[in-house]
C-alpha cells in the first residue's frame, strides 16, 4: 500500500486543522462540527456546508476542559472543550451538540459557560440536537421533528434553503460512501487482505472529516488498488477486533499492531461502519429516511433494548473476520460502554472468544506501558 495514497486519510484522521479543512475554508465555505453519530450529515451537505465530527485529538493539557467539567467525567468531551478553549476550532461556523451520553450533553452547557469566560470560542451557530433513546414510533416521530427543527435552524442562520431534492441527492452521495466503507470492511475481513488495521482505521476516521465527494473518490481508488491482490498483511498474526467507547486514537491501533503477532481486522466503534450506519432510503421523504437511518437502525449502547442486537452484530463480525480475540476498551467514567463491555466479556468468553478489557483516558496515549503489558499477555494467551 503506497503511503501517498493513504496520506490524505491520515492527515484528516490525525490533524485538527487538516489540509482538507484548510482548503475548504480557503474557498470561503462554511463548516459545522457535530459530536455524535446521530446528526444527519446530509442536512449540512445539502446546504453546501462541510459537516465534520468534533474530536479531541492533539490535546496536550486539560486546563480548560477540567475547569468546566471537573475531574470525574469522561475525557472525550473535555478534550473537545480544551481545543475549543484554545481556539483550535476557529474554523467552525457552527457546532451541533447531541446527548450521545450525559457527558456529551454536558458539553453544551460547559462550552457555553466557558464561552462566557473566554470570548469567541462558541461558534456563531451553536445548536443542541436532542435524540430519543427509543426507536418506538413515538421516538421516531420526535426525532423527525428534531430533524425538521435542525433543518429550519440551519436555513435561518445561514440564510439558505435546504430542499428535499437536495437532501435526497446528499443521501445518495453519503450512501455511496457507506457502500464503499462496507466494501473495505468486507475486504479487511479476509485473510488475504493487503491493508493493516491502522491504515483501515485511518480511512474510517477520515470519513468523518473529509468532504464527501473527495472521500468517496479517494476511497474508491484505494479499493481498486486493494483489489489488485496486494501482499497479505495477516501472515500468521492473531486477528483482533477493537470495540467499546469512542476511539479515534490511531496510536492505540499502532500500539496493538506494534506487536509482531497482532492485526486489527475489525472494529465495533462509533467510527467506521457503525458510525456511517446502514444505507438510507434514497426515495420518498428524506426526513423520514434520515430518522429511520440515523435513529431507527442505530445500534449504539445509548439506545434502550439494543444489547441483544449489538451482540448479534458482534458475533457476525467475529465470524466473518475470523476474529481470535476482542479488545474491549472504554474511556474512564464511561457508564454506557463500561457496563456494556462487562456484559460483552461475559457473553463472548462463554462462547470461547478471549477478551481483554482496557480502561483508559481519551487523548494522548500516555498509558502505553501498562496497556502494552496487558496486550502482550493477552496475545500470549491467544
Amino acid at each position, binding site marked *: 500500500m503506497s503511503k501517498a495514497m493513504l496520506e490524505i486519510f491520515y492527515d484528516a484522521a490525525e490533524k485538527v486543522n487538516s489540509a482538507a479543512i484548510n482548503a475548504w475554508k480557503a474557498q470561503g465555505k462554511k463548516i459545522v462540527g457535530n459530536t455524535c453519530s446521530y446528526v444527519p450529515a446530509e442536512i449540512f451537505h445539502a446546504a453546501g456546508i462541510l459537516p465534520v465530527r468534533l474530536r479531541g485529538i492533539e490535546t496536550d493539557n486539560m486546563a480548560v476542559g477540567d475547569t468546566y467539567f471537573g475531574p470525574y467525567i469522561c475525557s472525550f468531551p473535555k478534550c473537545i472543550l480544551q481545543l475549543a478553549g484554545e481556539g483550535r476550532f476557529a474554523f467552525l461556523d457552527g457546532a451541533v451538540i447531541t446527548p450521545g451520553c450525559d457527558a456529551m450533553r454536558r458539553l453544551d452547557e460547559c462550552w457555553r459557560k466557558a464561552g462566557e469566560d473566554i470570548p469567541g470560542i462558541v461558534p456563531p451557530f451553536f445548536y443542541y440536537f436532542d435524540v430519543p433513546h427509543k426507536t418506538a414510533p413515538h421516538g421516531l416521530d420526535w426525532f423527525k421533528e428534531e430533524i425538521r427543527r435542525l433543518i429550519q435552524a440551519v436555513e435561518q442562520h445561514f440564510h439558505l434553503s435546504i430542499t428535499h431534492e437536495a437532501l435526497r441527492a446528499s443521501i445518495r452521495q453519503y450512501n455511496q460512501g457507506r457502500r464503499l466503507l462496507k466494501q473495505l470492511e468486507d475486504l479487511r475481513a479476509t485473510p488475504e487482505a493487503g491493508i493493516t488495521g491502522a491504515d483501515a482505521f485511518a480511512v474510517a476516521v477520515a470519513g468523518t472529516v473529509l468532504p464527501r465527494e473527495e472521500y468517496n473518490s479517494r476511497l474508491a481508488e484505494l479499493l481498486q488498488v486493494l483489489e489488485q491482490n496486494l501482499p497479505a498483511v495477516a501472515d500468521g498474526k492473531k486477528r483482533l477486533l477493537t470495540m467499546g467507547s469512542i476511539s479515534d486514537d490511531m496510536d492505540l491501533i499502532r500500539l496493538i499492531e506494534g506487536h509482531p503477532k497482532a492485526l486489527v481486522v475489525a472494529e465495533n466503534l462509533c467510527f467506521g461502519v457503525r458510525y456511517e450506519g446502514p444505507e438510507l432510503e434514497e426515495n420518498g421523504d428524506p426526513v423520514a429516511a434520515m430518522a429511520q437511518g440515523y435513529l431507527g437502525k442505530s445500534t449504539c449502547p445509548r439506545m434502550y433494548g439494543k444489547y441483544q442486537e449489538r451482540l448479534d452484530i458482534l458475533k457476525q463480525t467475529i465470524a466473518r473476520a475470523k476474529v481470535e480475540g476482542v479488545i474491549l476498551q472504554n474511556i474512564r467514567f464511561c457508564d454506557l460502554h463500561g457496563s456494556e463491555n462487562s456484559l460483552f466479556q461475559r457473553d463472548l468468553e462463554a462462547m470461547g472468544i478471549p477478551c481483554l*478489557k*482496557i*480502561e*483508559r483516558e481519551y487523548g494522548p496515549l500516555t*498509558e502505553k*506501558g*501498562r496497556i502494552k*503489558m*496487558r*496486550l*502482550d*499477555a493477552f496475545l*500470549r*494467551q491467544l
Partner: protein
Amino acid sequence: MTLTAGCDVGSLTAKAVIMRDGRIIGAQVVKSRAKPEISAKEAMAGALTAARVALEDVAACVGTGYGREKIPFVKEVVSEIACHAKGAKWLVSSARTVIDIGGQDCKAMRIDEHGEVIKFITNDKCASGTGRFLDVMARVLGISVDELGRLSAGAKQPVTLASTCTVWAQADVIKYLNSGIAVADIGAGINIAMANRVAILANSVKAEHDVCMTGGVAKNNGVVQTLAQLLGRRITVPRKADPQLAGAIGAAIIAGQL
C-alpha cells in the same frame, strides 16, 4: 546442564535469576536505577556471581518488567503477567490463582496446571493497591516496609483509611499520627486498606484454590492475612524462593522453552 536466565526490571527493583535444569543457582535483587539497562546489568551481574557462571554460559535469557524492552542481553521479552504466572507455578505447584503486587501495579491471575494464564486483571485506576502505596506510607511512619508488615500483629484498633487515593490516604495517616494514635493501629489500617484494594482484583478473576501471592508485598504478613480473610481463602506465600523473584523465575523458565 542447560543454564537459562530471567531478568525482571520493575519500577522499584530489578531482579535476575539463573537456573540450571529447573533449579535456581543464583539470584539478585537490586534497586532500580533511572535507566533500565543499568538496573538489568547490575542485577544480572549479581546473579551470575552468585551462580559462579558467566553470561556467555547462559543458553537463553528472557526479559520482563517495565524495563524489558531496554535489557541488552535478552533473547526475547515477555509480558510480566505471563512470567509471574510461570514463576508462581514453579514456586507453588498447586497454585491456580496468583496475586502479584509489584512496585507500580497489582495483578491477579487465574492459571492452569501448566502455569499459563487463563484470566488476568491489573489495577488501572491509581497507585493504591501497589507496592508504592506501602512505600509511601512506611516513609510517612518513619519505618521500613518490612516493619510495616509486622505492625498488624500488635494492633488493637486499626484505623480506617477512607480514601483509596495514595495521596489522600497519606494525608489521613499524617492526621492520625498528629492526633497521637498508636503507630501499630495506623500500620494495621494501612495494610487493611492495601488488602481491600487487592481483594477487588482477586474477586474480579474469581479466585480459586490454591491462592498464591508473589511480589515484594507477599512478605508483608499484615496484608496477606487481611487479604486471606477478605477472600475467605488461605493464601500461600512461597517458601521455595523469595516471592519477589517470581517474574524473573518465570522468565528463566520461559527462556528454557525457547
